[in-house]
C-alpha cells in the first residue's frame, strides 16, 4: 500500500518511524507548508517525493492511505480532500475541531466506501491491551469504573503556553487541553463503551495564555462510569489508567511500563494486603528497570500503541477486514469528547 502524509512535524515523525518498519507499506510522499520541513523529512526517511501543496500531492502520487498529521483545526479540510482523491484516511487526534465536521467526513467516506479512522494510540499500548485481556478473560470481573488521569506540564518553553507563538491547538474549544482530550475519552470508551451523560469542570490555576489548565470530568457509559482528568500543574508527568473490576483493580502509567493488579485472593483475608503489596512491589521494580531499558532500545518506546495500531490498520486495509478503530468507535469517542468540551466562555 502507498502511504502519504500531510503535515511533517513532530507527530508525523512518529508515524514515519513506524511506517518504515511495516511490510507491504511504501511511504510514497510527504507534504508540509514549509518546503524545508517537507524536503528534510523526505531526505531523512528516504521518501521519493515531497510537496508543499497537498492537492498536487494527492493528484500526482495517488496514495492509498493518507495520514493527516497537521494541527487539528486543518484536519477537516485536508481529510476531505484526501477522501475526495479516493484515499483512506488516518487522522491524528483530535480528528476534527467539531463533531459536525467529523460526521460530515464519515458520511462522505461511507458514500465513497473509504475508511476513516483516528489515532487512539494509548488504547493499543501493551498495558492497555493487557488490562483489556484481563477484562475479557474475567480476571478483573465486570468493569465498574475507570479512571484516566493525564498529568503534563504545558508551561515549558516552546510549549502550549508559550506566549510568543500561539500554539495551533489553542484555537480548539477548551484550548490545549482539547488536544489531549481524545486520549482520555478513547481509553474510557474502551472499557465503559459509549457515554450516556457527562459532566465536566474546566478550571484555570495559573496565569497563562491557556484558557484552561485543569479538566476533571465524570462520565456514565454503557458498561460503567469513568472519571477523566487532565492537570497541567500537578507533577510529575504521568498518564494513569486505573480499571476497577468486580474482582480486581488494574493500574498502569502508560508513559512507563508500570502495570499492577490488586485482586481478591483465596486464603486468609488479613494476608491479602500483604500478598498484593509484595506482588505490586515486584511489578513496580520490574517496571522501573523496564522503563529505563526501553530508553536504551531502538523501537517505539512509549508509542508502542501507535505501532500496534498502524500495523493492524494497514493489515486490515490490505485484507479488507474491519479496522482496529472502526468508524463507529471514532464517532462514539468523539461524542463523548463533545459532551465534555466546555460550552461557556473561558474564565
Amino acid at each position, binding site marked *: 500500500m502507498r502511504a502519504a502524509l500531510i503535515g511533517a512535524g513532530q507527530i508525523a515523525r512518529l508515524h514515519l518511524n513506524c511506517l518504515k518498519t511495516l511490510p507491504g507499506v511504501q511511504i510514497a510522499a510527504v507534504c508540509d507548508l514549509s518546503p524545508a520541513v517537507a524536503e528534510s523529512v523526505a531526505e531523512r526517511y528516504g521518501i521519493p517525493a515531497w510537496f508543499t501543496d497537498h492537492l498536487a500531492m494527492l493528484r500526482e502520487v495517488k496514495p492509498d492511505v493518507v495520514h493527516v498529521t497537521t494541527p487539528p483545526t486543518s484536519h477537516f479540510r485536508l481529510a476531505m480532500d484526501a477522501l475526495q482523491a479516493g484515499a483512506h484516511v488516518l487522522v491524528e487526534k483530535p480528528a476534527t475541531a467539531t463533531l459536525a465536521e467529523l460526521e460530515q467526513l464519515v458520511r462522505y467516506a461511507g458514500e465513497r466506501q473509504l475508511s476513516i479512522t483516528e489515532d487512539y494510540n494509548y488504547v493499543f499500548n501493551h498495558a492497555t491491551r493487557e488490562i483489556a485481556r484481563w477484562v475479557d478473560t474475567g480476571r478483573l470481573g465486570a468493569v465498574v469504573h475507570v479512571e484516566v488521569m493525564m498529568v503534563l506540564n504545558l508551561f515549558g518553553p516552546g510549549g502550549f503556553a508559550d*506566549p*510568543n507563538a500561539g500554539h495551533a491547538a489553542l484555537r480548539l474549544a477548551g484550548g490545549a487541553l482539547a488536544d489531549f482530550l481524545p486520549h482520555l475519552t478513547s481509553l474510557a470508551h474502551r472499557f465503559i463503551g459509549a457515554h450516556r451523560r457527562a459532566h465536566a469542570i474546566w478550571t484555570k490555576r495559573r496565569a497563562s495564555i491557556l484558557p484552561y489548565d485543569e479538566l476533571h470530568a465524570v462520565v456514565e457509559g454503557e458498561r460503567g462510569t469513568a472519571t477523566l482528568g487532565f492537570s497541567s500543574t500537578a507533577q510529575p508527568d504521568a498518564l494513569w489508567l486505573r480499571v476497577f473490576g468486580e474482582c480486581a483493580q488494574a493500574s498502569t502509567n502508560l508513559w512507563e511500563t508500570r502495570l499492577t493488579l490488586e485482586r481478591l485472593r483465596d486464603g486468609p483475608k488479613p494476608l491479602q494486603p500483604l500478598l498484593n503489596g509484595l506482588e505490586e512491589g515486584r511489578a513496580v521494580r520490574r517496571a522501573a528497570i523496564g522503563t529505563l531499558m526501553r530508553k536504551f532500545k531502538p523501537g517505539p518506546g512509549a508509542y508502542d500503541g501507535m505501532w500496534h495500531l498502524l500495523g493492524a490498520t494497514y493489515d486490515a486495509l490490505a485484507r479488507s477486514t474491519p479496522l482496529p478503530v472502526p468508524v463507529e468507535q471514532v464517532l462514539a469517542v468523539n461524542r463523548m469528547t463533545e459532551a465534555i468540551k466546555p460550552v461557556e466562555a473561558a474564565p
Partner: protein
Amino acid sequence: MKALVTGANGFLGQSVVAALLAQGHSVRAFVRPTTDVQKIGWPDSVEIVRGDLRSARELASAFAGVDVLVHLAAAVTGGDEAQFASTVTGTERLLTAMAETACRRIVLASSFSVYDWSVIRGTLDERSPLATGAALYRRDGYAIAKAWQERITRRFAAQHGWDLTVLRPGYIWGRDHGYLGGLGQRVGRLHIVVGPFSHLPLTHVDNCADLFARAASDPRAVGQTINVVDGPGERIWGYLGDHLKGTGERGTRVPVPYFVAFNIVRLAFATILKRNEKLPGLLIPCRFEARMKPLRFTNHRAQELLGWHPPYSYAECLRRTYGSQLTEHG
C-alpha cells in the same frame, strides 16, 4: 548602515548590537513579543521590532530602510522538531519576507556543528566537509537545524542574488555561558574531562560579535564563509580550571584520554546499545565526536580576508566573563 538583528536579545545578539553601535551603525532589534528590553538597557537609538519568526504574519515591514540583515535567531533548546520549526521554518518565513524588500545583504550565524566531525582529521577549517545525508540525521536536533538553516539561506541568496556572508562560530563563551559542551561530562562535583589537552574552538562573545559587526559592513566579506574562533583555542583542562576558579564552583577534574573514552562509546553503541539513536548524545559516536574530537582550529580566513584579530585577549575575556576573580590573568 542600518542593520536588522534577529535574536538581538540573545547571548550573542546583545553583544552584536553593542558591537554594531560601537562601530557607528544603527540597529533595529527584532525581539519576541514578551521580551523585556528594559532589562537589556539598550540606548534609545536602538529601534525595537517585536515578533516571533515562528508565527508572525507580517515580517516585511521590519526590513524598511535596512541595509543588512544580521540573522542570529535560532533555537538552542527543545526537541528536534521544535528546534527545526523554530530555526529553519522561522528563517524561511523571514527570508520570504525579505525577498519582498529592497534589502539584499545578509550575515548568517551558522555554527561549527554543521561540519562532519567524524571524517575531519587534523585541522577543521572552512574547507572541511559538512554533515550531509544520513550522517547529518544521526546528529542532534541543533546540528540538523543549523545545517538546514544554512542550506536554505544559501538557496534564498542564490535565487534572489543577495550578498551573503556565513559566519560559523565555535563555542561562544562569556558571562553566564562559561560551561561548554566540549568540556566533558559533569557528574556531581566530578568533571570527567575527555582529552584534557585537546584545544577548544573558543570565541568569546565580544570577540565573536566584533567579527559579526565587521562582516556586516565590510564588502570583502560578501560571498564568504568564515569560521569564528579567537585562535587555536585554550586546552580543555586549563579552560575548565579557569572556569571553576572564576565561578568559585568546587569541583574535581578527572582526565580521561580521548581515544579511550571514544572507543568505549563506539564499542558500546555497536553492541549493547544496538545503535539506538534515541540515546543521550554522549553515547552516540558521531555526536560524541562533534563535542569532543581533538582537532586544530584556526581563524586564518578571518585574518586574511578582513584583517581581523580578536580585540580581546584570553586574559581580558576571562576578566569580562568572571570579573576580577582571576587576578593572576588580569
